[in-house]
């Protein structure tokens, strides 16, 4: 569905932010992108959504080449939730904020209302009056509003850039459940996060970026289970994974570890 071939990008007067990246994301995949600050994760996301154009190589969303397709057209397929919701929100009410993209796509007002109400409910903003001005919301609430505006459009690929900032654990889980539902419907999710607990629980595949390059691309179990690799690259492995290793077992999440312990000690 999404394909990148030998993609590079350099900011003016800056270092090469994305360096010769090739990858593809299929329908129904739940992919996590990890890497330290400045590794190129957000730049990669912006290249996928067409906000940035590759200086070398190409990015295709379905059949659309992002270099020659307007961003508005790409946005019909890829929804991108920025790390900072203030960069996304510009309407005077939360209703209009979520309705904006739907109106642009020519939906009828009754369908728009249905989707707006549903999307706000999904992110726990259903109790807010629809005419609430976004500036009255807290950072976390604004973040959820930004997520709702993208969810309402039901994109083929949802990109979440550090969605856990400003979200508490319960809401992170809820957001992951929404993503899971999208994935079951055949949509794809790309999540940029430092939260290995959520990745271990929900993502099928992990991409690791470093200095603009993808240095690892594999199944979640394989990448997050490779403690030596994670430590060498300065990441903090999950404690349940570390405990599993101390016990001579293989498991990532607490649930998997409990099962592994019981299997060996019936």
């Amino acid at each position: 569905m999404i394909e990148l071939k030998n993609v590079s990008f350099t900011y003016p007067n800056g270092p090469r932010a994305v360096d010769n990246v090739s990858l593809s994301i299929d329908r129904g995949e739940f992919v996590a992108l990890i890497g330290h600050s400045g590794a190129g994760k957000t730049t990669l996301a912006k290249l996928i959504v067409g906000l940035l154009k590759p200086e070398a190589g190409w990015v295709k969303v379905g059949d659309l080449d992002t270099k020659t397709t307007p961003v508005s057209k790409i946005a019909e397929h890829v929804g991108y939730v920025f790390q900072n919701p203030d960069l996304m929100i510009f309407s005077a009410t939360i209703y209009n904020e979520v309705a904006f993209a739907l109106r642009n796509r020519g939906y009828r007002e009754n369908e728009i209302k249905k989707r707006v109400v549903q999307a706000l409910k999904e992110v726990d903003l259903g109790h807010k009056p629809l005419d609430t001005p976004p500036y009255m919301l807290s950072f976390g609430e604004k973040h959820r509003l930004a997520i709702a505006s993208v969810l309402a459009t039901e994109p083929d690929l949802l990109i979440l850039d550090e969605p856990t900032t400003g979200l508490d654990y319960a809401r992170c889980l809820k957001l992951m459940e929404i993503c899971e539902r999208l994935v079951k419907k055949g949509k794809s999710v790309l999540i940029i996060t430092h939260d290995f607990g959520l990745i271990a629980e929900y993502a099928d595949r992990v991409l690791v970026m470093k200095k603009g390059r993808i240095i690892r691309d594999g199944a979640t179990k394989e990448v997050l289970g490779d403690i030596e690799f994670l430590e060498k690259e300065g990441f903090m492995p999950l404690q349940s994974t570390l405990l599993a290793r101390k016990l001579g077992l293989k498991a990532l999440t607490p649930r998997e570890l409990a099962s592994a312990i019981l299997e060996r000690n019936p």
Partner: protein
Amino acid sequence: MGALPVELENVYAKYAGSEDWIIEDVTLKVDRGEMVVIMGPSGCGKSTLINVIGGLIPHIVAGVVKGKVKVEGIDILKEGYRAIVGKVGIVYQNPEIQVITRSVSEELAMAPENLGLPRDEIIERVNWALEILGLRGYEKRDPQTLSGGEKQLVAIASVLTMQPRILMLDEPTSMLDHEGTKMVLNAINNLRENTEMTVIVVEHRVEWAVEVADKIIVMDQGRIVLEGSPAEVFSRGEEVKKFGVRPPSVSEVAYELRARGLDIPVPVRLSEAYKVLSEVFSVDRIKER
């Protein structure tokens, strides 16, 4: 016996314009040198509590505070926040908006300069803060060229130069990557080991919190709903999860095993978990199969 660093009794607080109380009936005592970690879902009042203890509400941010708020023995509702200037330092989550000068040493000197301290004393404090946070060599660096973790260390150091008796940090790692997080958490550990400072942190990194906290406070809807040592708080798995707090993953392993009928204690740290599990099941048996 000296005054407690923080003594709150039946405290209610809200911002100007808000109808409901953000903090409701909070009673809390923090001992000298204690490390308190505050957890809870977003909007539960954690940051507001920090702002009440720091005297920001109602003195700088308009709002209403009721009850008794004593910080370092000073009734700040009566005496105003100026009475605690220099005694309490607050570090916020976003390092970008806290660092304003063009060199690390200028940044660190700013607060003691504003306190009107003599030059030698300022230099001494800047050197101390650089040392304790591992920022030696950064003196001339422009903070804008530093990584997020390094900037947050500078923000903490610039508060430390006031030599506060209480340091409060509001989600100091939530905008940092793993490297930045390790840097900041190690710095806080270092402060704990080398100073008498009382530290209050709002922090979601539970696996760090259980290693260093003397006390964990869980808040929900403006109230303190759980309070105790890490072991006491996380032995109550169902309640903790109900309040939207992520338990340590090693505690979750125990919850899972307990849910499947095994009566084992709930560990909170990796080392304890290994001990508990190797006592219950023979580790050799686990390993050899």
